């Protein structure tokens, strides 16, 4: 299906400009978008750690690496192409020529070096800043349009983190402007290079932008203005789209019926997340003999779940059948077709087999199990998936003790020794990212945040084998080797049934067709910060 082999840096930037034929005279109206959160609502990229940046910072800031707009994942951005040096210890980034900041200054390699260094600086609280600090040795401006980043050791996935398809750290800030006016003024009157210029930001209320006049490589806006509103309550957001006070609003699957009944359009962004469940600390002393430590039991629990029912009824038909852990159709180094097939069969609904496996493992009458239900920010519907999953487990005779945790409270449970989670299952998710291995690191490496296979003090053979394999994947410079090792890694985790995908979720948007024309989203990127500029007015491209 979407099988493709990706050659990084192979695509021409001009492809992206296909849409952009609009001129300043042709920009009119205001595009109003209602969101459930505006995060920290700061216009300084190094002060926003979380996903909302891709909504309200993306319009004015370009990222070093861009998107593959059709399929998702990475594509050219400010960097036309990028390549790993022969020795694997540094990366070259070749910038587009002729880019300008909103104040007219040219965008050059100096800005890129400045931006990366600012993102790595002490004052930066960008979420992956510490990873950058760990991985980057130095940054060199080769010429005005070439930057070379020396990494500590081989970092084959280094550029991915500089695309908004993955994280925020690649956002570019104007060196001269910041150095001449100072940080405070920059925060109040930010200057970027994106298709929208900053107008104002009213805390807790909205952020407003104005379209740049000339053509922009990301697409030239069709609307004159863009206003992003903070509307915390979903029912209110839906009402605003119905009345036309907003053109677009973020929703959860629960509102899909409401949206369709009101003759609004539902826009879904495929592959934004996987809802999963995982088993914590089963390797630990005291849990080694628990039912969940038995791989047959874990497989049985997966077979007990009727995923189609969850897709049809909990997600109102707007979700996909999952692939392996953290793997999406746009994943790199992955045999997509093979793993889609795997998903169809391995993740099937087979309660008979599930019961047989339980009996085989010595639990014909089920067992008691703790299940921590939680929803991560941005995906509130996870709670309902969790409730549905618990019910399926209950139906094959497992006595599920389900407890709900608000996300911040749940976060406490899995740091440190994970005492209260060990031996229990919980809901979790993986966000839609092209490089699966990055997510595997947090999940399964012994030094990872979840360390489901073993921790740094207690790492059994299986855990050690995984650590070794993981290291091979992230340092494999040869694409073919990397693909083979990635495949092995996926197999190892899939067969462990330790972290199991339930469904592949989407980004859900209610759209008023009279306020905005038909638009395409970027697979995997729930947020629309890189889509606004290509949204047509309703008369330009009716639904």
């Amino acid at each position, binding site marked *: 299906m979407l099988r493709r082999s990706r050659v990084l840096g192979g695509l021409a930037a001009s492809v992206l400009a296909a849409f952009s034929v609009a001129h300043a005279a042709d920009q009119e109206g205001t595009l109003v978008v209602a969101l459930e959160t505006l995060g920290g609502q700061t216009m300084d990229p190094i002060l926003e750690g979380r996903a909302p940046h891709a909504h309200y910072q993306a319009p004015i800031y370009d990222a070093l690496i861009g998107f593959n707009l059709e399929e998702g994942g990475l594509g050219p951005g400010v960097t036309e192409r990028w390549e790993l040096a022969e020795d694997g210890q540094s990366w070259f980034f070749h910038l587009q020529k002729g880019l300008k900041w909103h104040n007219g200054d040219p965008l050059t390699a100096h800005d890129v070096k400045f931006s990366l260094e600012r993102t790595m600086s002490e004052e930066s609280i960008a979420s992956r800043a510490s990873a950058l600090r760990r991985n980057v040795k130095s940054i060199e401006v080769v010429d005005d349009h070439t930057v070379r980043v020396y990494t500590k050791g081989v970092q084959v996935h280094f550029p991915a983190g500089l695309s908004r398809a993955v994280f925020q750290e690649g956002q570019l800030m104007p060196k001269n402007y910041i150095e001449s006016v100072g940080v405070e003024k920059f925060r109040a009157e930010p200057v970027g290079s994106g298709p929208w210029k900053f107008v104002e930001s009213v805390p807790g209320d909205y952020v407003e932008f104005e379209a740049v006049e000339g053509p922009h490589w990301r697409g030239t806006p069709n609307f004159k203005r863009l206003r992003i509103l903070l509307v915390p309550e979903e029912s209110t957001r*839906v009402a605003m789209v119905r009345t036309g006070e907003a053109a677009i609003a973020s929703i959860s699957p629960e509102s899909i*019926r409401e949206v369709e009944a009101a003759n609004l359009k539902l826009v879904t962004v495929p592959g934004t997340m996987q809802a999963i469940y995982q088993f914590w600390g089963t390797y630990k002393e005291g849990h080694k003999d628990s039912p969940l430590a038995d791989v047959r039991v874990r497989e049985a629990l997966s077979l007990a779940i009727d995923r189609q*029912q969850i897709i049809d009824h*909990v997600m109102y038909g707007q979700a996909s059948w999952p692939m392996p852990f953290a793997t999406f159709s746009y994943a790199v180094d992955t045999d997509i077709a093979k793993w889609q097939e795997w998903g169809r069969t391995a993740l099937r609904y087979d309660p008979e087999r599930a019961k047989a496996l339980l009996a085989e493992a010595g639990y014909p009458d089920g067992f008691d199990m703790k299940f921590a239900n939680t929803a991560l920010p941005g995906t509130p519907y996870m709670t309902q998936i969790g*409730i*549905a999953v618990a019910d399926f487990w209950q139906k094959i005779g497992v006595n599920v003790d389900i407890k*709900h945790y608000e996300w*911040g409270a749940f976060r406490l449970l899995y740091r440190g020794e994970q005492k209260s989670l060990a031996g229990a299952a919980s809901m979790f998710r993986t966000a839609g990212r092209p490089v699966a291995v990055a997510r595997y690191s947090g999940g399964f490496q012994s030094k990872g945040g979840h360390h489901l296979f073993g921790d740094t003090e207690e790492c059994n053979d299986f855990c050690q084998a995984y650590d070794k394999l993981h290291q091979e994947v992230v340092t494999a410079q040869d694409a073919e080797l990397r693909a083979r090792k990635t495949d092995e890694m996926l197999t190892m985790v899939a067969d462990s049934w330790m972290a199991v995908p339930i469904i592949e979720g989407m980004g859900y948007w209610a759209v008023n067709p009279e306020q905005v024309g038909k638009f395409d989203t970027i697979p995997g990127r729930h947020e629309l910060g890189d889509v606004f500029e290509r949204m047509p007015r309703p008369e330009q491209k009716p639904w």
Partner: protein
Amino acid sequence: MRRLPLISFAIIGTMIFVAVFAPWLTPHSPIDQSLPDKLLPPFWEEGGSTEYLLGTDIFGRDLLTRLFYGARVSLIVTGLALTVGGGVGLVLGILSGYVGGKLDAFLMRVVDAAFAFPTILFALLLAVTMGQGMDTLVIALSLFLWAGFARVIRGEVLAIKQRDFVALARVHGSSPARIMFVHIMPNVLNTFMVLLTLNVGVIIVAEASLSFLGAGVPPPTPSWGLMVAEGRGKITSAWWLSLIPGIAITLVVLSFNLFGDWLRDRLDPKLRQL
């Protein structure tokens, strides 16, 4: 004299009845799901069925069944919160009113503090600290209640303390504890009872607001407040989800209020300022 509020008794009685006998009144489970049957309307609407008289929720669970079990949860939460919060308020109110002096001044400042501190935030903090649960909810709601009880009871005690029988008990050498809890307490029980009934509505609604903010009874356990909160997004496509439990709340609150008014008139016609 007000007439006996028979309808109120009937509604309260029904609520208690369905709460106690929920498992025998319905063939459905309040928690087990039947996803393909989700969001069926009540039987009188097109597409409804008599199997699910009041329709089903987003997981295909029978709404009527959840209403029955929800009555149980709401009653338990309300009962416990009133017992704990009301009880603490009663004891502190009596202490404060009878002992007076510095203790009174101190306790009344604490009451002020309780009013100055947005209780719902404390409930939220508790819910995120301890995890959502009925225990958390009861503690939070008790914290919400005690100050109001303490303040009113204290006022009563101040008046009662002047009465002759208290002086007499003192002359007879009764211990302060005995005077407070044997002589004074029975005289404030009327007020206490009235406060209890009038606060039922307050608690049920507070529980709903906490559910809305994500700190109420954790799903899948049904509570009326949670049901209203969960159904709020579907007012136009599945009105029964929030309207039916909403009506149940209104009826019960109305009944408890009428009952409380009646009780108040019956117990003490002077006790109107509640």
